[in-house]
């Protein structure tokens, strides 16, 4: 059925006429895709918010939507035919002129399917299962054309599309009368068509769509990457001193004498890197070398030699709303401790984006094998409507001595595309293990903005301390200090009036679960607040910090001071496992590692708020 369609058989003039149409179509498509992307982000956000409030234990006798208790005789609730959940009468939406209803979540799902045209793609997939959603005929034609004829044409800026009046250029041959000279270069043809179209579109003043069209012109894949790249930049403070806010100056310029004294010692250290080399701090080149060596020595987040596969099966029971992951075995795993040829593997799962300990499931630990057999089933209670917003992450870990964990590889499966209804997808299957997915969290969670921060570990790096560190004594040195400057935030979910009265809370959870909490002043009436506020956490040591986590939350102050609104949160440092570097894949985690491993140096970070 898939015929090879291309523009080859057409005469040059015809081809140009059709190309014009294709480019116009592409502009329409770009706008449409952007609209759909926004809708989906919004929905995922809703789902993710819902997910937080749903208790992991699904209670039979409570409404699946509002968690209200259901009675035995009165207000028993009824089962939604969409998701098979029992919901109370409040959480139902009735379809027009019928007594049929859907629960609130299924109804929202339905709305989104309508708005995105998803319903059509689903229907169409019944006949053309291989057809992608967005590969329109026009896009394919354009692609084949661009591949076949390597002419360097600058496509015209499409005219603004006025909705009711329709885009202007008709491709009737009659209008082509003005392009009589068939030999004219293609550029000229495009040029004249463009001016022709521009003339026609002058009268329209739909400036917004004009801008949008320019930004997402033909043949560019709209600026998707722009925002992401911001979070990747780790700018060393030394190159940015000039632009530093005043508030930071005293912190940055402190006691240079103390730092420069043990110069000889440092050089000595850098040539012989040890896990503790980074305590030397002071000299930049020295500390840079030590960062690398530190990471490899610790081994925890060395993804270099991930090998092997994992075998598991995935089932979902719509009746009980339970997702079952049957972990069967692994083979050819890398050694957790390469030198000792030791490997005590176990498997851990999360239903991302939930990374809480409640959402964690683990198998037992197998001893001394790189080909372990588990035969264990890990279960989650999750509603069908939630599945689409989740990613199953299956990771394999080595449990070393002193509960040290080594990452052995992972598999991540987006459940949105998983067909739970198809029995063939329920079979056991081998999946190759991979290194930590880069920025997974950032790419799957809708961002609620970015928080600009700057951090430094202030640590009295006297010779005595260095000695201690070298000897490997890991005693807490209560003189340490974590300086954390909350610079500002942008792209926050603002109020309807476009402003916020925002503030930041910082909570440092130490390994003994002791919490140090600090709060910034409120930045009034600002959409992009600039707090430039320093949090100073006193009495912490680097080794403590490596097992601590810092949670930063941005809030919008409630008008009457009752319920402040959570705008977003970012987390740095170790997770509930207490294993440093377990999730070191994301840029912010790497930057955090850098803060910890280069004391007395400022590190700038852009944290994505979720």
């Amino acid at each position: 059925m898939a015929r090879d369609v291309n523009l080859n058989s057409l005469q040059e003039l015809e081809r140009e006429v059709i190309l014009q149409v294709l480019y116009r179509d592409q502009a329409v498509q770009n706008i449409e895709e952007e609209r759909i992307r926004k809708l989906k982000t919004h929905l995922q956000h809703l789902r993710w918010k819902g997910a937080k409030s749903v208790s992991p234990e699904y209670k039979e006798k409570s409404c699946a939507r509002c968690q209200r208790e259901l009675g035995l005789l009165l207000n028993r609730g009824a089962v939604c035919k969409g998701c098979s959940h029992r919901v109370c009468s409040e959480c139902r939406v009735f379809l027009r002129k019928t007594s049929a209803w859907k629960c609130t979540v299924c109804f929202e799902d339905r709305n989104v399917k309508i708005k995105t045209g998803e319903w059509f793609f689903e229907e169409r997939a019944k006949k053309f299962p291989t057809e992608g959603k967005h590969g329109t005929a026009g896009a394919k034609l354009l692609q084949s054309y661009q591949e076949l004829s390597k002419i360097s044409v600058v496509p015209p800026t499409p005219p603004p599309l006025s909705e009711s009046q329709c885009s202007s250029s008709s491709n009737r041959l009659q209008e082509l009368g003005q392009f009589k000279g068939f030999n004219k270069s293609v550029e000229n043809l495009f040029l004249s068509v463009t001016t022709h179209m521009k003339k026609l579109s002058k009268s329209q003043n739909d400036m917004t769509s004009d801008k949008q069209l320019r930004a997402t012109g033909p043949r560019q894949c709209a600026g998707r990457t722009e925002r992401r790249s911001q979070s990747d930049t780790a700018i060393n403070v030394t190159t940015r001193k000039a632009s530093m806010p005043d508030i930071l100056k005293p912190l940055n310029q402190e006691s240079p004498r103390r730092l420069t004294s043990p110069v000889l010692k440092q050089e000595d250290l850098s040539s012989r890197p040890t896990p503790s080399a980074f305590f030397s701090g002071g000299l930049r080149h020295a500390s840079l070398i030590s960062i690398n060596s530190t990471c490899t020595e610790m081994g925890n987040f060395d993804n270099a030699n991930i090998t092997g596969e994992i075998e598991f099966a995935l089932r979902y029971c719509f009746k009980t709303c339970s997702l079952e992951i049957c972990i069967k075995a692994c083979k050819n795993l890398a050694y957790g401790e390469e030198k000792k040829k030791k490997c005590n593997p176990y498997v851990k799962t999360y239903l991302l984006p939930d990374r809480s300990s409640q959402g964690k499931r683990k198998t037992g630990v197998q001893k001394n094998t790189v080909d372990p057999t588990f035969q264990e089933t890990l279960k989650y209670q999750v509603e069908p409507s939630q599945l689409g917003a989740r990613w199953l992450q299956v990771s394999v870990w080595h449990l070393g001595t002193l509960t040290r964990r080594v990452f052995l590889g992972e598999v991540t499966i987006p459940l949105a595309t998983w067909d739970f209804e198809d029995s063939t997808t329920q079979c056991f299957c081998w999946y190759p293990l991979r290194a930590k997915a880069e920025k997974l969290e950032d790419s799957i969670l809708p961002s609620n903005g970015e928080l600009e921060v700057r951090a430094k570990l202030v640590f009295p790096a006297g010779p005595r301390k260095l000695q201690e560190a070298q000897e490997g004594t890991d005693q807490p040195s209560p003189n340490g200090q974590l300086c954390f400057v909350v610079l500002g935030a942008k792209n926050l979910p603002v109020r309807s009036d476009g402003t916020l009265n925002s503030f930041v809370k910082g909570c440092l959870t130490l390994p003994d679960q002791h919490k140090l909490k600090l709060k910034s002043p409120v930045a009034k009436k600002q959409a992009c607040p600039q707090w430039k506020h320093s949090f100073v956490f006193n009495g912490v040591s680097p080794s403590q910090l490596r097992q601590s986590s810092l949670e930063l939350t941005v809030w919008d102050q409630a008008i009457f001071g009752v319920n402040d609104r959570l705008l977003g949160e970012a987390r740095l440092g170790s997770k509930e496992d207490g294993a440093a570097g377990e999730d070191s894949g994301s840029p912010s985690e790497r930057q955090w590692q850098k803060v910890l491993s280069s004391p007395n140096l400022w590190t700038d970070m852009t944290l994505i708020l979720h």
Partner: protein
Amino acid sequence: MASATDSRYGQKESSDQNFDYMFKILIIGNSSVGKTSFLFRYADDSFTPAFVSTVGIDFKVKTIYRNDKRIKLQIWDTAGQERYRTITTAYYRGAMGFILMYDITNEESFNAVQDWSTQIKTYSWDNAQVLLVGNKCDMEDERVVSSERGRQLADHLGFEFFEASAKDNINVKQTFERLVDVICEKMSESLDTADPAVTGAKQGPQLTDQQAPPHQDCAC
């Protein structure tokens, strides 16, 4: 016909203000039956007697308001000439609905309807909505295809039927709006098939805020 369906939409005005979606529609039929003229009449409210055969494909965008709902239509005008067939059929897959047109003064164009219908069955999704349109009904004197034959064929093929004139602006708007309506019905149906109570019921894609009938509370 169209007026009967209007009441079905938009009872609840405020609940879905920004309801906004896009339908893709394809116009097909023999060359010179008046496809381009039909689209120009609908989108620009213009008509030219001169015949300029369409090269390949073209489209226009028009947003209509069905009561509360903004529906953006991308209407594809295809060339009737055989030589463009590979390009035009490539667009069938993206279309939710079709306007299949013939010329009431042209027997051959009517005879081709069956073939066009087969093309739809081959290249489009299974629930493609099709309206059969006999164009140029202003030219009563030169009519060779009676309304009755048109209607019969439409019934046979399972399509709805209109006679229209791009020149005199007869049934143009109605044709498009009816097609939008049947696509909406298909959409509701496909979304609610899991629910036998809803299938086939006449409901638009919106909700009411009516309360549950009491017995529903006990249904399980």
